[in-house]
């Protein structure tokens, strides 16, 4: 009996092969969540303080930077609520760093990629999710610290979730882009590590954008960076209403279209690159 006259029409549609998202949104969610939770559980496996490290680490970094920039370099004196601003910035940037740390994630999960059928994008998404859990927990600490430092709750706090989501979208776009490229080009990782360092200083994390003495143009250039725009708006909306809004710092609301455009472009590019690479990742590894 030849294959042609079996009753193939009773069978399901042709197997599409591996893809970025897979057919079932539910399975995608289960997988991404499972991977993220596992990663989260394993993160501090074997350490005495366990999860507490997740809170202590940004606080320690904060301690070091705070000491340096209030006692020695004296940037902090010119910024209201400097400790709170610094801590919030560190926590947000740590999220950016952890989430884009997904660069090697697809390669590291080779065992899964080559052995089971699952939507490939669950991997970078899970990394961003794990970083997201940490961010949410860390932000609770930031808020407590803010209130203790005299910041009063305001309606504009409602902007915070929106800003965090925008940052998460940027991080996810980069995670997709980098992890897909890394499968083919292993130099992506060292390049990205240096880029992260540059971004750390190129973004108003330890300083406030309006205090840069150089020129208005440099300020405005810095504000084209979507991370900078998000951090600045967060500072204005959550911590210090007297701080300039992102729009003000950028030199006009319309100028915010640049960081927004970059954000959208990164997301679109990341998705496209990952989507195109997904069917062949198992072979390329």
């Amino acid at each position, binding site marked *: 009996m030849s*294959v042609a006259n079996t009753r*193939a029409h*009773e*069978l399901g549609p042709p197997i599409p092969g591996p893809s970025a998202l897979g057919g079932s949104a539910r399975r995608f969610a289960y997988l991404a969540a*499972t991977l993220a939770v*596992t990663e989260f559980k*394993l993160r501090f496996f074997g350490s005495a303080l366990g999860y507490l490290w997740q809170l202590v680490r940004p606080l320690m970094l904060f301690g070091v930077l705070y000491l340096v920039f209030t006692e020695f370099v004296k940037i902090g004196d010119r910024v209201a609520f400097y400790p709170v601003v610094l801590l919030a910035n560190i926590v947000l940037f740590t999220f950016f760093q952890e989430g884009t740390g997904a660069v090697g994630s697809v390669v590291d999960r080779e065992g899964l990629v080559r*052995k089971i059928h699952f939507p490939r994008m669950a991997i970078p998404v899970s990394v961003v999710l794990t970083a997201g859990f940490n961010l949410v927990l860390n932000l609770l600490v930031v808020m407590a610290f803010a209130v203790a430092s005299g910041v009063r709750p305001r309606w504009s706090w409602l902007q915070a979730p929106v800003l965090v989501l925008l940052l998460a979208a940027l991080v996810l776009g980069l995670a997709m882009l980098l992890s897909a490229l890394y499968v083919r080009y292993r130099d992506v990782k060292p390049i990205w590590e240096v880029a992260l360092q540059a971004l750390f200083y190129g973004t108003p994390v330890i300083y406030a954008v309006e205090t840069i003495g150089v020129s208005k143009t440099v300020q405005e250039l810095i504000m084209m960076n979507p991370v900078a725009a998000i951090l600045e708006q967060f500072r204005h909306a959550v911590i210090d209403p007297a701080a300039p809004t992102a729009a003000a710092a950028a030199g006009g609301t319309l100028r915010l279209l640049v960081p927004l455009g970059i954000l959208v472009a990164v997301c679109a590019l990341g998705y496209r690159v990952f989507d195109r690479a997904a*069917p062949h990742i*198992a072979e390329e590894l």
Partner: protein
Amino acid sequence: MPGVPAVSVEGVGKEFRLPHERAHTLKERALHPFRRPGAERLQALDAVSFAVAQGEFFGIVGRNGSGKSTLLKCLAGIYKVDRGEIRMRGRLSTFIELGVGFNPDLPARDNVLINGIMLGLSPKEALRRFDSIIAFAELEEFVDLKLKNYSSGMQVRLAFSVMSQVDADVLLIDEVLAVGDAAFQQKCFDVFQRLKDEGKTILFVTHDMAAVNRFCDRAVLLERGRVEVIGAPGDVGARYLQRNFDRDGARPEEGDEGRVGDGTAEIAEAWFEVDGARADVLPQGAETTLSVRVRFHAAVTEPAIAFLLENDRHDPLWAISNEDGDAPSGTHAAGDEAVFSVTFRNVFAPGRVHLTPWMVHAGGAPIIDRRPQLASAVVTAVHRSGGLVDLPCVMRYERGIRAPA
């Protein structure tokens, strides 16, 4: 082919590019933007078609590099096919490796849930089946033990148990049975049998023809990415061995080291059989047959055909010829073929055995054809006495009466 199809593979082709020199770094890319790295194309699968009926236990066999693993990965949706279509009825579960996603630092409880979800269960289902998974693996006392503290046998049991609890209509299994002891393998096959009785379809990838013979209803033999034959396991097995034999025979053909003879007839092939089927594994105690097929190129009268069985250290274990028993060969004309076989109960010590068949003219000379170590097989046994043979025997131990002091 009976029944409704559960899996249909139509004209599937898959090609791999094997770059000679991989542009692995951006620098190389930047320096030579237009130079495409030269690549060899490897046709891993070529126009592969077959259909599997619902409830069938279907074997996919082939030698190393025949494309069977690539086919499995295409079936599993891990590789994208370049040409053709694969369709399935119902849910598919793949077991290319036991314990995908197992993490040694997490306790068994977490690992079972993670693995179940990886294999297609929802978290709720995984939780619901947790108890029966643990019960099947017989690991109730060790649920909270970290996986790295499990013995490898326990890990395999746990992994297999998760797999047996996943519901799927079609199961893809890759030689997971190569691991574990005989009792565990039996347990695995009991599970497969149960799944089969429940109407599930099983595709089993292996190069172990014995397993195919035992469990498969039908099988497909792949050779260099093409379908060589589809049919009953016996036929497929015979062709598989023949294929292996062709390849292995090709090397000695040039040298065929130590081959001597006057060419009036030739020994075409020699093989082992266990319980009537060709085998390269000979369980001790089983009814075993040595066979040789000869082809005559000239008229030959009353040739004698003999076998010599040696172990790896070239110790002769046994020599036997048709003249030793009641199997006269008679008169042959050019073009005749004959098969001579000797059946016995295998008493040899475990290890590799080599078969040297030869044929001489009546009277003991000259030699017509002698092909040293033409076939080999492995004798298996649970017990090893240390000698060349393990003879069945009866033992007795009698305690003497101590002489009064």
